[in-house]
């Protein structure tokens, strides 16, 4: 298997053959596009893109073959790929929830309508794939333009992920989580009492058909604690999924947080499965440990998740630009002390 270093060495030797101003087609990825896709990632990010796969053509082909990546490309007649966008598996455990993103355009074609055509093609693809039940995106908040486009494409605001990504310089960038449901059924959720009002609003805004059951802190513990934790050292972020919590659950979450902090994480996110009362009740120990509401992440587990988040550094609120009143209301929710 090619390593990242080998792939980058190869890419750095290749001349950029893309000429500006040429006619292109926008269509679904073909296996023979993989080399040109990797070349595009290199032209856009040089060696800085954190995910190795996008520099290694066989890895891109493999991800597409196994249904983890559904790209669309803008291609010149000579085979060069000048634009890319994709639906892809990322953090959510539910395989039917894909992330919408990775939009990029070759530097020679910036300021063109390529990204618009890629996004339109991806929307058509999204609606045609039977395995895709919902999609979400993370719209950056250093500008409102991505949020505006997301709204125009029918995505709904559901959460604000504070300080999620490293930005230019020393700052970080918050992201507005946006969501679009494609096919769903009525579900039952357990809403922790201290944030039930906020959850009710978010569910209504996302137009989700849910039966909401009020949950008290004394909610019964499960037989066993089941957590999954991912750390993204390059971004300084820990993400944990909570499936169920028993009596040792709160301690297990604290231990996971401490281990992630030792690896350099400064942002901690827990996604609590609201279909499972013991997982939803994890919101109380988290709130007592400095966590605040991040929002709702619909379909995260197939069932919806409550996002609780904690930052080791105060968020730079003045750098958060929000497009909609709903997004501003979500921001207010994320900054408020939980009313326990």
């Amino acid at each position, binding site marked *: 298997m090619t390593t990242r270093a080998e792939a980058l060495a190869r890419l750095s030797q290749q001349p950029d053959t893309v000429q500006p101003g040429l006619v292109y087609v926008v269509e679904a990825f073909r296996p023979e596009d993989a080399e040109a896709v990797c070349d595009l990632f290199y032209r856009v990010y040089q060696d800085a893109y954190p995910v190795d796969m996008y520099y290694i053509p066989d890895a891109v082909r493999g991800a597409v073959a196994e249904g983890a990546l559904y790209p669309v490309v803008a291609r010149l007649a000579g085979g060069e790929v000048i634009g890319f966008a994709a639906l892809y598996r990322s953090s959510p455990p539910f395989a039917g929830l894909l992330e919408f993103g990775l939009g990029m355009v070759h530097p020679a074609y910036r300021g063109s309508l390529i990204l618009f055509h890629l996004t339109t093609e991806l929307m058509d693809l999204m609606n045609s794939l039977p395995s895709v039940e919902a999609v979400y995106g993370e719209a950056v908040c250093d500008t*409102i*333009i991505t949020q505006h486009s997301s709204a*125009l494409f029918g995505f709904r605001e559901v959460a604000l992920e504070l300080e999620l990504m490293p930005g230019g310089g020393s700052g970080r960038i918050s992201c507005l989580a946006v969501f679009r449901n494609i096919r769903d059924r009525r579900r039952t959720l357990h809403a922790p009492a201290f944030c039930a009002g906020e959850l009710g609003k978010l569910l209504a805004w996302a137009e989700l058909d849910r039966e909401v059951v009020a949950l008290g802190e004394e909610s019964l513990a499960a037989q066993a604690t089941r957590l999954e934790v991912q750390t993204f050292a390059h971004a300084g972020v820990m993400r944990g999924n909570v499936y169920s919590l028993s009596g040792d659950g709160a301690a297990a979450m604290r231990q996971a947080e401490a281990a992630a902090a030792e690896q350099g994480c400064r942002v901690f996110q827990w996604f609590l499965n609201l279909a499972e009362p013991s997982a939803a009740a994890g919101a109380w120990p988290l709130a007592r440990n400095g966590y605040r509401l991040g929002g709702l992440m619909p379909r995260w587990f197939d069932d919806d998740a409550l996002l609780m988040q904690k930052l080791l550094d105060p968020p730079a609120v003045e750098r958060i630009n929000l497009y909609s009143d709903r997004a501003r209301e979500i921001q207010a929710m994320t900054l408020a002390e939980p009313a326990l």
Partner: protein
Amino acid sequence: MSATLEDLKKTFAFAIPADVLAKLDPAKPLAAQGVDSLAMTAMAVAMQNAFGVKVSVEEGLKLKTLNDVLAFVNKAR
């Protein structure tokens, strides 16, 4: 009734950063005035929603300036 440059600027109020929109010369290329791919995407969707026009790849390649966009909107709708 034909759309005007002012109509376009109102439609693009959230698509193009305010400081860029305020100084936009309708005769000069958008890309050269700070309108990037993200803004172009938002512009195209806003245009589609406000004027009911859809931009094909071929047509999109010809839309370099705000005047080009205005001519396209008035011809297409």
